[in-house]
Each structure stands twice: as structure tokens, then as C-alpha cells.
């Protein structure tokens, strides 16, 4: 049995998405910037896609900029608004696309505050409020966390930014399709999203930029995307992303049921703990098992055909434990045995049952090897 439970990393491209994209490879392959009919046909497809994506987050079509993905959208915002002497506020649990961009800005003389989160990963509104200063230009807080599934209270955080007159950006890469998004109600000025997490193609993303806000471009050239992001449009990607958005308006009740089945079952095991809140992304489970290390869990499961991910230090390139788990207060020694399971609409109960059975075996096996008990 092959079971894919790593949809937070990326997801299967839906066949209907592939089908929608195909004509734009071989028939309507014109450059949307060209005046001839080949180009204008492609432009029509891009235009409809832009409208669809805008509508999905309650924005206007001309507020959507196509990018190469979540990473680029995040980089654009962090690098394209603040100048030397300005202040950016973000959190300790952001994706590296935000954190590393912020680190680069610090080198360029921008001040950055990394907000603490509580032990479930929530940003406390009063913590944000008191961090905003005179020179604060931008607040960037992810809508939903990719590791532990925490969903922030966007309306509250957005209202604070509005009241204080600072721009509010959110990385919604993991939230799209799982949490309903309304940039107006949430007072969001800028939003990043990505195609490949929601059964769309890889290498396509959007940045929503509210009308009137100026973002300095990262990529210069022919002036595409209102001059904000040059480069020939990724027509197939754009069409695929819009199709994926159309398909992701589905009921997550079944996903939530499977998620909670996994959580309940894993917490029955001794010395296990749920990372993140109970009320979380419908597709996310993150559990830490004491006395063992995540890479071993991942590879044993892989041997059984099951794909998950881990926040262990040994399996990361940096050899550091997950910054998110440390930020919610896990001790490094208890963060190594963490496993993240991320569901998609394709996962079945039989897959979940198979995974749970295999995982129990793996935990027992690895704990039997461990010097620290749990035997």
C-alpha cells in the first residue's frame, strides 16, 4: 500500500487540473502579452483565472499578482515595502520564506521584531499591539502554520493593524482551501498563496496586493503584472491554480474526522503529546513521541509505503530542531520525535488505519532500541 500523508509539503495535482492545463501547452500556447489571437486567447484564460482567484479571497482581479509560488510572494512583501530604518513585525513560527527574508532585511538596516507565540502557537493580540511602534511599516503573520496547524485570529490581528495604520500581510499558503478567507473582513492588505499545496501545479503562486499599496518589484523586465513582477506569464500554472481553487471549495468534515481519529489514536500511546491546538487546520496532525527520533520513524514508515514528515534536527539540513516546536516551548530533546501527518481529500479511512497500525509498530520498535525507556 502506498499512502501519502505529507500534503503539507506538496500535494498530488488533481487530474481535472491537469486536464484544464493541457490545452495551454499545445494549443493556446501564445504569450498573453502578444496582440495576435494566439496571445489574446491565452490572455483570456489568464484573465478568467485571475478573476476566479480574486473572488476566492474576496479581492478584485487587478489586486492579484502571479508569482512563482509562496516563497516568492513572501519575499516580495518582506523585501519590497520596508526601507532602512523601518520596522517589520513577524512571528517566531513563520515559514523560512519569511524568516530568511527578514534576516536579509536586518542586514539592510531594517529592524525586525519576531513575536513570541503561546504554547499552542497563537499570537496574542495584545503582544502584537504592544510591539507596534512609530516606524512599524509592516506586520506579517501567517494565517495557518505549516507544522502545527495553528490558525490565527485574522480578524482580530487585522483590526489591530488597521487601527494602528500599519500594513498587514499574511502567508496563507497552508490556509487556502482549509480556512475561509476574506481579505476585506480580515483587513488583509497583502496575502501569499501557492498552487501546489491544494492539488494545483508547482511553481505558481499569487500575491494579493490591495489597491493603492506599492510593493517594490524583485524581478525587473518587461513590466508584466502591472510592473510588479516581470516575466512571461506561467499560463499553464495560472490556469491550473485557478482550477485547483475551483475544486478546493469542498467540505472538510471528513478530513476533520480522519484527523481526529489519528490524533485520538496517537495520544493513546504512552509519552506522546499533540503539538499545536486541538482546533487546527483540518488536515494537520503533529505528535511528538518521547525517547525516539523522527528520522527513524519517517524511514521505517517509508519502508511500509507511507510518507510523513518530521521536525527532528537530524533530518533537517541545518541539524537544528524545528523552530516552530521550540517556539511553542518544546525542549529540544522532546522535539526530535515529532511526526507531522498532513491529509488531503484523497486519503481514505483504510489508509489511515494502515498508517496507524504501522506507526504503532515503528514506535515500539524504536523505543525498544532507545536508552531512555518507553519500553
Amino acid at each position, binding site marked *: 500500500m502506498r499512502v501519502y500523508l505529507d500534503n503539507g509539503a506538496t500535494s498530488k495535482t488533481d487530474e481535472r487540473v491537469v486536464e484544464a492545463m493541457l490545452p495551454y501547452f499545445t494549443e493556446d500556447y501564445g504569450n498573453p502579452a502578444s496582440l495576435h489571437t494566439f496571445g489574446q486567447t491565452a490572455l483570456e484564460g489568464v484573465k478568467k483565472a485571475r478573476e476566479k482567484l480574486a473572488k476566492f479571497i474576496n479581492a478584485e482581479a487587478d489586486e492579484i499578482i502571479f508569482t512563482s509560488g509562496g516563497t516568492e510572494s513572501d519575499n516580495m512583501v518582506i523585501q519590497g515595502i520596508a526601507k532602512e530604518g523601518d520596522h517589520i513585525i513577524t512571528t517566531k513560527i513563520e515559514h523560512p520564506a519569511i524568516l530568511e527574508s527578514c534576516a536579509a532585511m536586518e542586514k539592510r538596516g531594517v529592524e525586525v521584531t519576531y513575536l513570541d507565540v503561546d504554547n499552542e502557537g497563537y499570537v496574542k493580540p495584545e503582544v502584537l499591539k504592544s510591539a507596534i511602534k512609530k516606524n512599524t511599516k509592516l506586520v506579517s503573520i501567517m494565517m495557518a502554520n505549516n507544522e502545527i496547524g495553528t490558525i490565527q485570529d485574522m480578524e482580530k490581528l487585522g483590526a489591530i493593524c488597521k487601527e494602528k495604520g500599519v500594513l498587514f500581510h499574511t502567508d496563507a499558503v497552508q490556509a487556502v482551501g482549509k480556512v475561509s478567507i476574506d481579505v476585506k473582513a480580515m483587513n488583509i492588505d497583502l496575502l501569499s498563496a501557492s498552487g501546489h499545496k491544494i492539488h494545483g501545479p508547482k511553481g505558481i503562486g499569487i500575491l494579493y496586493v490591495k489597491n493603492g499599496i506599492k510593493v517594490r518589484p524583485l524581478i525587473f523586465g518587461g513590466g508584466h503584472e502591472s510592473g510588479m513582477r516581470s516575466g512571461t506569464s506561467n499560463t499553464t500554472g495560472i490556469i491550473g491554480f485557478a482550477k485547483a481553487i475551483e475544486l478546493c471549495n469542498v467540505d472538510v468534515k471528513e478530513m476533520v474526522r480522519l484527523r481526529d481519529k489519528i490524533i485520538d489514536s496517537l495520544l493513546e500511546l504512552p509519552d506522546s503529546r499533540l503539538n499545536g491546538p486541538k482546533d487546527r487546520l483540518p488536515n494537520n496532525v503533529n505528535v511528538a513521541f518521547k525517547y*525516539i527520533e523522527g*528520522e527513524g520513524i519517517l524511514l521505517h514508515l517509508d519502508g511500509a509505503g507511507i510518507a510523513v514528515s518530521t521536525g527532528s534536527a537530524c533530518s533537517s539540513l541545518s541539524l537544528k530542531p524545528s523552530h516552530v516546536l521550540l517556539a511553542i516551548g518544546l525542549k*529540544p*530533546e522532546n522535539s526530535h520525535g515529532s511526526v507531522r501527518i498532513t491529509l488531503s481529500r484523497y486519503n481514505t479511512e483504510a489508509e489511515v488505519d494502515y498508517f496507524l497500525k504501522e506507526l504503532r509498530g515503528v514506535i515500539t520498535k524504536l523505543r525498544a532500541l*532507545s536508552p531512555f525507556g518507553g519500553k
Partner: protein
Amino acid sequence: MALYSDVVMDHFKNPRNIGKPKKWDAVGQVGNAICGDVMYIYIKVDDNIISDIGFETMGCAAAIATSSMVTEIAMGKTLEVAENITREKVAENLKGLPPVKMHCSNLAADGIREAIKNYKEKVNKE
């Protein structure tokens, strides 16, 4: 899986000499839980020879495989020979380790040395 060699994967999936031997004289403890790899290597010594050996490891696949491999290399060896098992030797017998794993996960040779040191200290006390 291209990260690890087939020998590493074999030792990870089917580790040899696991757990404490029935009787053991000394233990070498290396690594630390904060960085994620911890190894306890247990030895039984008879007439200057490692007559039994076992390990307990919390760690990644590389940590488990190096522990298993080092016990296999050291079993039946004299203390002098076992003391001179190097990290490189362990990695070589495993048909190589990824560069990032050469340091923190490749502690097993140190574990043997610690166990022998611990053994000698105990003998000297008697």
C-alpha cells in the same frame, strides 16, 4: 531513497546486537539528547577480548546504523584493536554516510572507546 547506502538501511532496519547483553562489564555513553543522537554501548570483556556487546541508541537512521555496525566490528576483538576503530572505518564499512551525518550521528566509535575507558577504570579500582 538515495540518502543512505543499502548497508546503512540494512543496519537501520535490522540492527545487530541490540540492547544490553545479559552480562556486561562496562558502558560507554556518548552524544546528548539535545542534539538528538545518544548511544550507550555495553561491553563484556573476557581475557582482554570483547566477548559480548550490545547497544541502545536514540537517534536518526545513521546513528542506529553506526551503532549496529560498530558492535559488529568490535565483537571478538581485543581491547587494543577495538580502541582503534575509527569513525571513518565505521562509515567505510557502511559504504559511506551523507556528509551532514559524519559528525553528530557517527559517534559509535567514540562509544566503544568510552566503554573501554569505563572498563579500565573499573578494573583499576578493583
